[in-house]
């Protein structure tokens, strides 16, 4: 029992050493870089102008508008019973979807990297399909598939499994949308994993399961967690696919972005803004967590 954790710790240190060795010359090069290239003023000027016009000014507009609200007013608008139900549903269904992706995505990444089977390259390319497919189309086809007359729904609905117009439908759509994240974060880590380590464990008498649990899994964990967080963050803001599949029933199948749109349709700008700020703050907190996680999992990549 005692030698395996030590083994993996030593591998960690080995990876770190390699990381540092490759980083140092790169830093030196960057410092030495001498510059006579033209166009810095022009490109930087345009970059800042365009960034301000498209991103920063709209952003500032929202912030200033929010600051115009008094705190009690903001709190009242952001925490209505309907809003709380929407946050809860958004977070719960995003968590379940991200968990499903962590589990099946990790399995898919493993299978794609480790095994040869017919159609492997096609499946590998198809993993990015949810990135490329417009979310509206994803929502439309999933709602149809799981609806009472759909290819799957016609068998599932009689069994009481409602994959459309239900919280389960939301989870299905969010799983689809977040599918590439875990697979794509895990794949490079798996490819770079050294087989010698597993061989060493096998030589030392560990069975395959034991090798996996105490040697392979610990080095995959940070990447799976990063992929999980990315899928979760993507799911929190998702709107397009949910519109089609959720049924949009207040307190039951209404997610936070849908409630923002409802408020806007009622011309209740302040109500929409309060909800949007809550969603934004949550996304930024997640972004911070993801950055930390990425740094952590990059230690296993070199």
């Amino acid at each position, binding site marked *: 029992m005692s030698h395996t954790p030590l083994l993996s710790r030593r591998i960690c240190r080995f990876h770190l050493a390699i990381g540092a060795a490759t980083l140092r010359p790169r830093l030196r090069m960057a410092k030495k870089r001498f*510059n*006579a*290239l033209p*166009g810095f003023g*022009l*490109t930087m000027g*345009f*970059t800042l102008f*365009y*960034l301000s016009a*498209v*991103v920063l000014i*709209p952003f500032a*507009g*929202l912030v200033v508008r929010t600051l115009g609200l008094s705190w009690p007013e903001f709190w009242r608008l952001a925490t209505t019973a309907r809003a709380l139900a929407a946050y809860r549903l958004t977070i719960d269904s995003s968590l379940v979807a991200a968990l499903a992706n962590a589990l*099946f995505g990790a*399995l*898919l990444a493993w*299978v794609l990297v480790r*095994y040869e089977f017919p159609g492997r390259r096609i*499946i590998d390319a*198809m993993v*990015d*399909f949810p990135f*490329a*497919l*417009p*979310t*509206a*189309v994803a929502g*439309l*086809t*999933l709602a*149809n*598939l799981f609806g009472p007359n*759909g290819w*799957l729904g016609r068998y599932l609905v009689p069994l009481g499994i409602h994959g459309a117009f239900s919280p389960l439908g939301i989870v299905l759509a969010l*799983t689809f949308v977040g599918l590439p994240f875990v697979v794509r974060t895990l794949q490079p880590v798996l490819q770079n994993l050294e*087989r010698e380590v*597993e*061989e060493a464990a096998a030589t030392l008498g560990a069975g*395959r399961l034991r090798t996996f649990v105490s040697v392979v899994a610990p080095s995959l964990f940070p990447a799976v967690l990063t992929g999980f967080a990315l899928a979760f*963050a993507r799911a929190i*803001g*998702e*709107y*397009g696919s949910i*519109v*089609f599949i959720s049924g949009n029933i207040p307190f039951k199948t209404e997610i936070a*972005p849908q409630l923002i*749109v409802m408020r*806007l349709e009622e*011309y209740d*700008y302040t109500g929409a*803004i309060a909800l*949007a700020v809550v969603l*934004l703050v949550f*996304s*930024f907190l*997640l972004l911070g967590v993801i950055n930390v996680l990425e740094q952590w999992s990059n230690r296993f990549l070199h």
Partner: protein
Amino acid sequence: MSQTVLIRKRDLVRQSQRGTEESPVVKWTLITIALGFAFLFLLLPLLNVFAQALAKGWSYYRSALVEPDSWSAIRLTLLVAAISVPLNVVFGLAASWAIAKFEFRGKPLLITMIDLPFSVSPVVAGLMFVVLFGLQGYFGQWLGAHDIKIIFALPGIVLATVFVTFPFVARELIPVMQATGTEQEQAALTLGANGWQTFWHVTLPSVKWGLIYGVILCNARAMGEFGAVSVVSGHIAGKTDTMPLRVDKLYTEYNAPAAFAVASLLAMLALLTLAIRTILEWRQARRELIAGRVDS
């Protein structure tokens, strides 16, 4: 000759992996579960789009696409992409030149800012423009007085699209430009080329594939964006409905076959995007393989 060497190498690798492989039963169980998941979430939704689109036959499919409101949605989507993608390409080139070729303070902050739109929910992105230009927005009254329409019109749709697709080209280009360094450009300048010539003949060819990659991703998202555009469009049939919005409208009007017909075009766009992307990646992998062989 090189073929036999490759095969022998593969055999060696295989032999060394014998102690570290799962039993065939475990292996094929894992493959089956993973493929089942991929089939359920990747293949089935895709097949369903085309099956439902053609459920009422070819002639219905054709007429659903050329029906005036759908046809105008297709044209609007192409127009919006034709405006917003080039804007983001120019920005991506400028930003990656400044970031990759020069050192300055606050560079990490600038990169974070460029990535910002990725972490904003599309609905919130749309809301930002409504807050600026909407009826109760900052410039709403002024715009109304001067009869300029931004929200519920083409400019608003373009702005929302530009916002959500903002980072795509820059993000692809920055690492590629950083990797190529500045030596080639310095050489060109020393040989008497001016800045534009250097950029056009030296920099652009070296980042060509990254640029194409960024453009197709940016375009796919621009044509497929729903949330942000939905908030600013106003959903005026025949005027401010893009293809994804048209899909939504047809669906809520209980016209599923027509909704799927329009959706099938977007699905084809997604497949085309994936195909180009995959070809580019395979090219890259092959080039690296060849480079590796030359090295060894």
